[in-house]
């Protein structure tokens, strides 16, 4: 039996029936993980001993008659989430040597649900990138579209799940960082509504945009994880006190022939514009046709300010990044370039510790907040952000969900466009709007290109519309190969 190819639901069934133990499952994954580090490089840290100890504990608890939502289920964690006693570098050299003294709230929730933490997945440094090539510890390769980028910033998580190196993973999504790598690696990725999942303990990228979410092999697994991750956290003032439904009930009672009957899917014209790869366009059309066949009504809608998404996003995001990354100054933790003078210490620590893309964004953010430029950039971007949010609200007055591509093109080869930041930024055009608006979205495999590259389709829901997202995604989900 190929244990590492299991889904969470499949693993839970096997663990509960006693077909295999968590230790056997974890060991199978750890072997595959170690073997793939030289090629895929999905992980920056593998905690074999810790994972096996957790697996053993889970097996003992199960033997004692206990059961929990994720008891003994091995999961990969993005390197920007604090897990007590583990390194947490956000794939940055500047955090080398830092050991997390506390659990992020999502980690505490997974721990309480019985999950096993396999290790820490590679990412773009401080989540600033969409290829995982800005990692301070080397790139990750796409396990499906070999030789290509896995996407990013949660590229390590996507590669781990897509490459059967974890049953599931946590990612974080600031402008598409869960959905885009999920699309490139052929898995499911959810960007929950802003405030649905606690951000406490996640190394902040852009506070008003960041959201943690599941990256899984199936829609059902994503729903299982969302059940554990969701809810108000007293440690995160921006988390919201909305009831948490059982997301695995989203598709319960659906008509097997027409599971999307009564649902209207909006097709935002602006997301099907120029620059969309023909194969991506064709696979998206196929998803539309399937939705219609499954009973959904399709309706053209408009997001008139979508064209301002990229500049607005890159102003809001870099502004927050410039402040959030200020604390990495060598005074309290992580890397320090020792100097006689504290100002010199700041300069050298940050010059040596941060990579080029991080520096670029900190400089951009510092610029847009500077006296004399604030109104023209930051302030104006906030106003456009409001318009973008209203676009989505207006669209959702006409439909239940939006259906659109996730990225304009499939995964490109490693190393390409690396010195062209604008080219990279533009690839976020179909995902950043959701973060600016705060609503929820999901990326779901839609098929592969002729060259075998996975392509995802994006479903976008209103605030706290995750139940509708899961219902539609479950219906549209393709059978697993």
């Amino acid at each position, binding site marked *: 039996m190929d244990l590492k190819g299991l889904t969470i639901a499949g693993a839970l069934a096997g663990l509960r029936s006693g077909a295999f133990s968590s230790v056997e499952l974890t060991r199978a994954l750890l072997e595959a993980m170690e073997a793939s580090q030289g090629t895929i490089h999905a992980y920056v840290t593998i905690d074999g001993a810790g994972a096996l100890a957790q697996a053993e504990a889970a097996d003992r608890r199960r033997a004692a008659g206990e059961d929990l939502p994720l008891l003994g289920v091995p999961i990969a964690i993005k390197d920007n989430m604090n897990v007590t006693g583990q390194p947490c570098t956000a794939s940055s050299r500047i955090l080398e040597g830092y050991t997390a003294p506390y659990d992020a709230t999502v980690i505490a929730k997974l721990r309480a649900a019985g999950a096993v933490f396999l290790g820490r997945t590679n990412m773009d440094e401080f989540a600033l990138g969409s290829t995982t090539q800005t990692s301070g510890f080397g790139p990750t390769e796409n396990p499906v579209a070999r030789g290509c980028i896995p996407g990013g910033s949660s590229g390590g998580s996507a590669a781990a799940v897509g490459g059967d190196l974890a049953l599931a993973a946590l990612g974080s999504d600031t402008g598409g960082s869960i959905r885009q790598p999920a699309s490139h690696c052929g898995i499911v990725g959810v960007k929950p509504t802003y405030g649905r999942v606690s951000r406490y303990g996640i190394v902040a990228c852009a506070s008003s945009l960041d959201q943690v979410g599941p990256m899984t092999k199936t829609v059902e697994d994503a729903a299982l994880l969302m059940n554990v991750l969701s809810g108000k956290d007293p440690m995160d003032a921006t988390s919201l006190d909305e009831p948490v439904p059982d997301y695995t009930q989203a598709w319960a009672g659906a008509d097997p022939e027409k599971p999307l009957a009564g649902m209207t899917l909006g097709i935002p014209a602006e997301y099907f514009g120029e620059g969309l790869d023909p194969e991506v366009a064709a696979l998206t059309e196929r998803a539309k046709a399937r939705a219609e066949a499954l009973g959904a009504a399709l309706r053209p809608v408009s997001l008139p300010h979508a064209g301002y998404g990229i500049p607005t996003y890159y102003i809001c995001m870099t*502004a*927050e990044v410039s402040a959030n990354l200020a604390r*990495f*100054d060598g005074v309290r933790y992580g890397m320090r370039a020792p100097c006689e003078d*504290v100002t010199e210490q700041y300069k050298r620590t940050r010059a040596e510790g941060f990579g080029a893309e991080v520096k670029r964004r900190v400089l951009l953010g510092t610029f847009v907040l500077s*006296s004399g430029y*604030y109104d023209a950039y930051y302030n104006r971007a906030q106003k456009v952000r409001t318009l973008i949010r209203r676009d989505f609200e207006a669209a959702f007055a006409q439909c239940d969900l939006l259906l659109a591509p996730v990225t304009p093109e499939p995964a490109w080869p490693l190393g390409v466009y690396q010195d062209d930041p604008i080219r990279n930024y533009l690839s976020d055009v179909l995902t950043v709007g959701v973060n600016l608006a705060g609503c929820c979205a999901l990326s779901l495999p839609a098929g592969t290109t002729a060259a075998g590259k996975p392509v995802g389709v994006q479903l976008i829901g209103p605030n706290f519309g995750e139940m509708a997202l899961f219902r539609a995604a479950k219906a549209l989900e393709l059978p697993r190969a």
Partner: protein
Amino acid sequence: MDYEVVIGLETHVQLKTATKMFCGCGTSFGASPNSHVCPVCLGYPGALPTMNREAIRYTVMAGLMLGCKIAQYAKFDRKNYFYPDSSKDYQITQLDYPLCLGGGVEIAGEGGARKTVRIHHIHLEEDVGKLTHRAGCSGVDFNRAGTPLMEIVSQPDLRSADEAIAYLTALREMMIYAGVSECNLEEGNMRSDVNVSLRPRGQEAYGTKVEIKNMNTFSGIHAALLFEIARQKAALDAGRAIVQETRRWDTEAFETFPMRSKENADDYRYFPEPDLMPIVLSAEQIAEWAKGLPEAPAKRRERMVAQYGIPEYDAGVLSADRALADFFEATAQRCGNGKLASNWVMAEVLALTAKRGVALGDSALTPEALGDLLKLLEAKTINGPTAKALLPELFEKGGDPAAIVKERGLGQVSDTGAVEAFVDAALAANPKVVADFKAGKQAALGFLVGQVMKQSKGKASPQLVQELLRKKLA
């Protein structure tokens, strides 16, 4: 040339919340370095601030005390700058939507006339850590980092160093009264940035101002202002322009010095704090908090003079401490004689607290007990010496004065017949003293009174004894 001095103060007042502004760490003073810290106040990766509602309430109370308009919408902002005492390299503060706007503090201005110093606004922010420099290294203690601070910004309404101190004294009294801060100057609970400029008298436009940063003693502020006013006057008289700059007060040299230009304000790149939701206060919430607001000390002084018929001096002493004033008022109401209550609280009770080193609130003495004791005194049920003798016991153990007096038979003997017997006995036993008195030695009477009191075991009414002695010796 004759100049007018223009002074404005930005005063940081530390709130006396049990925990910090944005995390659950304690705020106690004097703990060993970095013992009251957590991932939040240390600025660890991933940590987020959460709001201390008590700090919001205290700031609103302070604002109400100063007559400010309370904002129903306020928000926090990030102030970005690199400095090792800042754990996040930005400070969470309020830039353009502070909690309180307007208001004022009444002081006795130059020449004694009452004047109101207007408050521009009060905002809430977090304190930073404390740096210690040693040979070859520096240390940071983050215990204080994240402690809630109110910044009370005055309008440039002050016209002299004395007025500045009068303002700070009144402000401090009001903050202590409102129960929002200890305002302990030694512990740095109240620190001011002082802005001062001069302008030719009669000119409307302000002169170039100089800021003296981070002053925590009133005497220091006074001295620094006197120095700075003289320095600016000399410069202006000599035709030199004042440089707009930040200076620091050197307590050794007794002079202000310009701070290095690096420490002068630059671009803080403020923007709204995305980790915190804006503060939205309903009118009902503000009204509810206002119920907990005490009467302002100045108003209370006036009322106490009118209501209890006590001298202004007494009212001033009593109202300086809210708990003492509460105690006095309760005592006065219980016994029905304000002046008597004021005499006893100010003389006897305060002397006891000083002598025993026990705060009034920590003693067993209640205003009800003291009021009852004074009632017994007024009704001449007991005499003064007995009342004074009973006070320490009530202070230590408490109790019902009427019951004690009854149980121990301490009631004053005002029965003329009984006292007369003591008087006759005393006269008979001391013929020489009687002769002295009759020979004109007034002091002899005192001795005889003492003898009678002794025989009565202190219970005879001293007035009655005197009266009877004089009659019999006449």
